[in-house]
C-alpha cells in the first residue's frame, strides 16, 4: 500500500554501493574473547555487577544502573570474566569494560525466560530489561522513547527501514529474513503504547523488502508500508517524519512533539523475539564491506566481538586498510584500532583502502551554494564553517548551529572540499562548554 509522499528538501546522492544487499545473514560463531563496554547507549553508564573470576552464562546481567536514562547490559557468551577495567574504546574518555573468556558451550542463563506483560507498565519494564537501545545507530534507550510525556499525544509509529547510507544492507536483510517478527513487534508496540497507526518507511531501492513487508501486513489495516525516494539522509528521523507525515519536528524537540515515535526495523523485530523468548540483546546483525575487505557480507555477531575477528570471519583484509569506520561512510565514526568491540548500536563495519580513504585538501569557499541546497535542515553550512574557522562563536547560535544533524550532505556536495561538519562539531562543542560555565 502506498501513500502520498512528501520529499524532504535537500539531500545528496552518493553512490549506493549496496554490494551485500542479496547476502543472506551469516551467523558468526563464538569469538576468542568478548569485551563488553558498560556504555553502549545515550545516557548514564552502567555499573558492572560481575567481577574478575565470576562465571557467566548467555543472557546473564553484567551491567546495570539506577539512573533513568540507561539500559542494562548482558553477557553474550558463557565463560569466565577475565577482567573488569577501564579502556579507551573510541575517541571518547575511558569506559569500564567487562572482558569474558568464552568456554564455547554457550550455556543459557537460568533467569532467561519470556517476560510477563499484562500492562503498559509491565511492557515498559520488559523493554528496559531487554537492554534494547535504538539499533539504527542512535542508541537511545527504547523504554524511555516508548514512554513519552502524557501531554504529547503520539498518533503514528514510524518504522525506519530507509537505510539511506551507502554500503549498509543489514536492515534490508532484516526486512527480508525476519518479516513476521517485524510485524509482531509493531503490533506489540502499538498495543501497549496505544498508538493507532504505524507506517513502515522503506527506500525504493529495496523492492524485495517492500514486497515482503507489504505482503506481511496486507491483512492489517493499521499498518502501512510506504516506499520512499532513495536519497540521503532519508533515514534521518526528522527527514523520515517529514516525508511520511509532512510534519516538521520543532527545533530542540523530539519526534513525540510531532506526535510520532520512530523505531528502527531491527529494534521492533528484536523486541518481538524478546517478548517470546526472554533472550536479551546479545547479538547484532551488521554489514561488513569496503574496498579493503576480502569477502563483504552481512553477519550476525555476538556483542563484544572485536572488529579484527569480525573481519577475519569475512576473509580478512584484501589490502592494507587505511580507515575503519563504524557505521556508514556519511555519518560513521572512524576508529583508531581493530581491537574495538562490536556494540549494540553498531550496524556496519567498513574497511577502506588508502585510495578510497583519501580525504582531499580544503580549498577556499567559492560561495557556490551547493551546501545550502544539500542541507536538509535549512541551514547555511558555508556560513557556519566560516564563523567557526574565524573563531566567531558569538554568531553561530543565531545561525541555528544546534539544528545541524551532522549528516554530512554539505561536505559531500562541496566542490572546495571544506570540512564543514568538523567545524560545526567544534562550534557545538564550544557552545556546550560555554553554556556549562
Amino acid at each position, binding site marked *: 500500500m502506498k501513500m502520498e509522499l512528501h520529499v524532504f528538501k535537500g539531500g545528496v546522492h552518493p553512490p549506493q554501493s549496496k554490494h551485500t544487499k542479496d547476502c543472506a545473514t551469516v551467523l558468526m560463531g563464538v569469538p576468542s574473547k568478548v569485551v563488553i563496554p558498560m556504555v553502549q547507549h545515550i545516557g548514564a553508564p552502567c555499573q558492572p555487577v560481575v567481577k574478575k573470576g565470576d562465571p557467566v552464562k548467555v543472557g546473564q546481567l553484567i551491567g546495570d544502573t539506577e539512573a533513568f536514562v540507561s539500559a542494562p547490559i548482558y553477557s553474550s557468551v558463557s565463560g569466565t570474566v577475565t577482567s573488569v577495567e577501564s579502556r579507551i574504546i573510541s575517541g571518547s574518555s575511558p569506559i569500564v569494560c567487562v572482558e569474558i573468556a568464552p568456554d564455547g558451550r554457550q550455556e543459557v542463563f537460568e533467569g532467561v525466560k519470556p517476560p510477563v506483560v499484562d500492562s503498559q507498565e509491565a511492557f515498559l519494564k520488559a523493554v528496559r530489561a531487554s537492554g534494547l537501545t535504538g539499533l539504527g545507530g542512535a542508541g537511545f534507550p527504547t523504554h524511555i522513547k516508548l514512554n513519552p510525556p502524557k501531554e504529547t499525544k503520539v498518533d503514528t509509529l514510524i518504522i525506519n527501514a530507509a537505510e539511506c547510507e551507502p554500503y549498509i544492507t543489514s536492515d534490508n536483510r532484516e526486512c527480508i529474513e525476519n518479516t513476521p517478527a517485524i510485524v509482531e513487534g509493531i503490533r506489540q508496540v502499538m498495543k501497549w503504547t496505544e498508538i493507532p497507526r504505524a507506517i513502515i518507511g522503506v527506500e525504493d531501492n529495496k523492492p524485495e523488502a517492500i514486497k515482503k513487508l507489504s505482503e506481511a501486513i496486507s491483512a492489517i489495516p493499521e499498518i502501512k508500508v510506504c516506499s520512499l525516494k532513495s536519497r540521503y539522509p532519508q533515514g534521518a528521523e526528522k527527514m523520515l517524519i517529514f516525508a511520511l507525515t509532512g510534519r516538521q519536528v520543532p*527545533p530542540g524537540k523530539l519526534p513525540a512533539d510531532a506526535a510520532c515515535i520512530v523505531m528502527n526495523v531491527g529494534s521492533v523485530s528484536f523486541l518481538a523475539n524478546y517478548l517470546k523468548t526472554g533472550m536479551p540483546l546479545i547479538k547484532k546483525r551488521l554489514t561488513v564491506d569496503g574496498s579493503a575487505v576480502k569477502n563483504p557480507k552481512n553477519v550476525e555477531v555476538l556483542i563484544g566481538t572485536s572488529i579484527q575477528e569480525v573481519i577475519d570471519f569475512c576473509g580478512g583484509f584484501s589490502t592494507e586498510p587505511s580507515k575503519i569506520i563504524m557505521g556508514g561512510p556519511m555519518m560513521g565514526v572512524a576508529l583508531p584500532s581493530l581491537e574495538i568491540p562490536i556494540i549494540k548500536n553498531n550496524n556496519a563495519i567498513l574497511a577502506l583502502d588508502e585510495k578510497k580513504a583519501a580525504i582531499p585538501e580544503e580549498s577556499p569557499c567559492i560561495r557556490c551554494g551547493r551546501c545550502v541546497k544539500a542541507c536538509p535542515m535549512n541551514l547555511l553550512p558555508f556560513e557556519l564553517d566560516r564563523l567557526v574557522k574565524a573563531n566567531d562563536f558569538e554568531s553561530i547560535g543565531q545561525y541555528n548551529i544546534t539544528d545541524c544533524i551532522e549528516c554530512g550532505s554539505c561536505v559531500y556536495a562541496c566542490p572546495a572540499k571544506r570540512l564543514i561538519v568538523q567545524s560545526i562539531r567544534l562550534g557545538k562543542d564550544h557552545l556546550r562548554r560555554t553554556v556549562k560555565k
Partner: protein
Amino acid sequence: MDKMLQVSSSPHIRSEATTRRIMLDVLIALLPAAFAGIYFFGLNAALLIAVTVLSSVAFEYLMRKVLKRSNTISDLSAAVTGLLLALNLPPDLPVWMAIVGSLFAIVIVKQLFGGLGQNFVNPALAARAFLLVSYGTKMTTWTQPLAAEVDVISYATPLGVLKEGGELPGLLNMFLGRIGGSLGETSALALIIGGVYLLVRGVISWHIPVIYVGTVAVIALIAGANPFYYVLAGGLLLGAIFMATDYTTSPMTKKGVIIYALGCGALTMLFRLYTNMPEGVSYAILLMNVTVPLIDRYTKPKRFGGGARV
C-alpha cells in the same frame, strides 16, 4: 598491520565535483563565444583573448607570491576572469589596455580582497568599468564585423543605434553575431550554446539568466519597445549567463537569487532607457553585486520546524 589508521571526522566520502572542474566547465562554455568573436572580428580578437587570459594568470601567480600565499593558478579561476574580461572588450582595443584591465581585476578586485571567493564585485566587470572610465574613447570604439552588410569607418552597436538613431541590423544578424559590440557579446547563438552546456553540467541553474533576461524583455514591452532587440542587443546575454551567475557575487539563497536577478534586469533597463549610456548591463550587475550581502541577510531560509527567522 604496520600503518596507522586514519581517524577523521565524518563524512568519509566526497562527491566528484571540484572547483577546478567547475572553472574548466565555464572556460569550455565560453569557447563558442570566443570563437565567434575571432570569426567576426579577426586576429586582433584572438590576440586580445590570449593576452588577457595569460596576463590574468600571470598577475595571479605574481600577486600570490608577493602576498606570500599559495599558488592558485591551477584552480583556473584567474583564467576564467581573463577570458570573461577579454569577451567584454572592444575587439580592437590596444593590447596594453587589456593588460591593465587584467591587473585591476586580479590584483585589486580579487587578490587584495582575499582571493578566490572573497571578491565583493565581479572582477571582470569591475575591470571593464575601470577601463571605461580610464580609456573612454578606445573603450567605445567599435569594429565592423567581417562580412557585415554595411561598410562604415566608425561603427555603431545596436544599442548605440537605439540611443542615437540610425539603421538597426536585422534580428538574424543580432542572433548570429554579425553586429558591432564587445568581443564576446555579439553572438547570442554562441552564448546560448555555452549557457545550455553550463545548465547541463549543473554549474548554473536557470533562475538568474531567465529571470534577468525576462525582466528586461517585460520592461521593454511595457516601455513600448521591441523586447527582442533589447534582449539580443549589447551585453545582456553575456552578462545574464556568465557574469551575473558568478557564485561569489550572487546570493546564496533561493529567494535572494530571484530578487537579485529582478534587480539586475530592472537596473539594466533603467540605465539603457533613462540615462545617456547606451548600455547598462555592467553597472547593473556591479550595483547588484554590492547589495548581495544585504539580500543574503534578509532572505535566510526559514528554520526547520518553525521558530522565528534570524
